[in-house]
């Protein structure tokens, strides 16, 4: 488990222990000067400046240029000394850490027939630290209820606005036993980011950790008899097609996608395909304003088709 006690700017102390000494030392020395701000990302780069991304929009240089040995050691530590256990996710560009933390990685890829078969010589690591944005899942839950859970909801926003946090809140609220509906909720947690916060005894959500979306949705429908399925970041057309095949089973799908507005969302062929098939009954745009989330709801009928 990740030790949630942080260093004053939101970096869990157990995460600092995974960093090279020069980085953790630079962060410790920098902390007083950025007190009151929150660290959203730690960006480590090979032979380039490592930086922190702060919640007020600034980038704080750490004054450290990591060498190959330090990068390799960091990757080894992030993988818990078991690179093979993270091989599949590294090929997809990330390493999942406990506590909903995700480290994006890139390096030298070996590809075969257009697919990445291995990634070595990691030269950039971007550790995203989940931040507590106040989220109220009620509007999403009300939307689902108003559609009698026959249609899903797609949450969209640019990266870093809080889609994952909102999805977690919705999953927690719908699956809550005491003071909630205790609904049959399945969370297809491909990137192992959603389960954080859903492990409490009050949640009845079934968590499918690490499952590919289509396979996870199929299992959620066929064997777990889910009423609501929650999954993060629907991407390409191929993925959307697989989701479509798997999801024609009567459960409401609550998912998220990267887009800055509804036009941009509908420009994505995969999303458009799901829209045309009526998988989603409503689209909810997110914007973070002064630490709170602002929601813009567009019903399916209101989406202009061009």
């Amino acid at each position, binding site marked *: 488990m990740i030790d949630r006690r942080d260093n004053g700017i939101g970096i869990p102390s157990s995460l600092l222990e995974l960093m090279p000494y020069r980085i953790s030392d630079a962060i410790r020395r920098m902390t007083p000067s950025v007190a009151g701000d929150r660290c959203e990302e730690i960006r480590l780069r090979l032979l380039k400046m490592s930086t922190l991304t702060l919640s007020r929009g600034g980038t704080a240089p750490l004054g450290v240029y990591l060498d190959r040995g330090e990068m390799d050691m960091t990757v*080894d530590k992030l*993988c*818990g*000394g*078991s*690179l*093979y*256990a993270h*091989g*599949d996710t590294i090929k997809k560009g990330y390493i999942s850490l406990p506590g909903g933390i995700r480290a994006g990685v890139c390096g030298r890829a070996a590809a075969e027939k257009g697919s990445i078969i*291995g990634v070595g010589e990691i030269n950039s690591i971007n550790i995203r630290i989940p931040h507590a944005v106040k989220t109220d899942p009620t509007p999403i839950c009300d939307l689902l209820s108003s559609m009698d859970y026959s249609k899903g909801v797609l949450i969209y926003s640019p990266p870093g606005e809080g889609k994952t946090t909102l999805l977690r809140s919705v999953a927690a609220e719908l699956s809550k036993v005491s003071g909630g509906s205790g609904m049959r909720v399945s969370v297809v947690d491909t990137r192992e980011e959603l389960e954080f916060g859903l492990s409490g005894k009050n949640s009845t959500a079934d968590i499918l950790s690490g499952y590919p979306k289509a396979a996870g949705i199929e299992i959620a429908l066929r064997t777990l008899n889910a009423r609501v399925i929650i999954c993060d970041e629907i991407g390409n057309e191929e993925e959307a097609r697989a989701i479509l095949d798997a999801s024609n089973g009567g459960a409401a799908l609550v998912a998220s996608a990267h887009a800055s507005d509804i036009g941009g969302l509908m420009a994505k062929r995969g999303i458009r395909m799901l829209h045309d098939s009526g998988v989603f009954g409503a689209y909810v745009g997110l914007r973070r304003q002064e630490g709170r989330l602002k929601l813009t709801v567009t019903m399916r009928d209101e989406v202009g088709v061009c």
Partner: protein
Amino acid sequence: MLIRAGGALMIVFASIFASADLIKREKRRIECVEGFLALVSYIKDRIECYSTPIKNILADCDPAILKKLGLDDPVSDFGQMISVCEGLLSEETLKTLREFSSTLGKSYRDVQIRVCGKTIGELEGQKNSLNAAYPSKRKTVIALCMALGGMAVIALI
């Protein structure tokens, strides 16, 4: 005379115990290699089937394997397991295990499984050699201890 007879008796007992101890040690050497063989096979299975992180694999290790290695409780580091058995292992086995330890968790699944397979093959060979040599070693140890004991008794009396 009585003291000499007592001394001779002690030498005979010492010879018997020494030979028993040396034979037991030889058995422990084989057991230790068998333990590592079982451990590496177990690691290979867990990586092949579930891609389980090495920390969890070692933490869930079968007590029977640990017993063969002379451990009561699981340890979190493969290198530590080698250290515990260092005195019982040949240079060749130590080299095999150290090489395995240095690559454990450092490569992707396919490569890791191949490394496990290679290590299992090498350990199998070393175990077979030890097993083949065991009967003759046993005879040599018994003969040597008895001869030395007998010589000491004769010299004493």
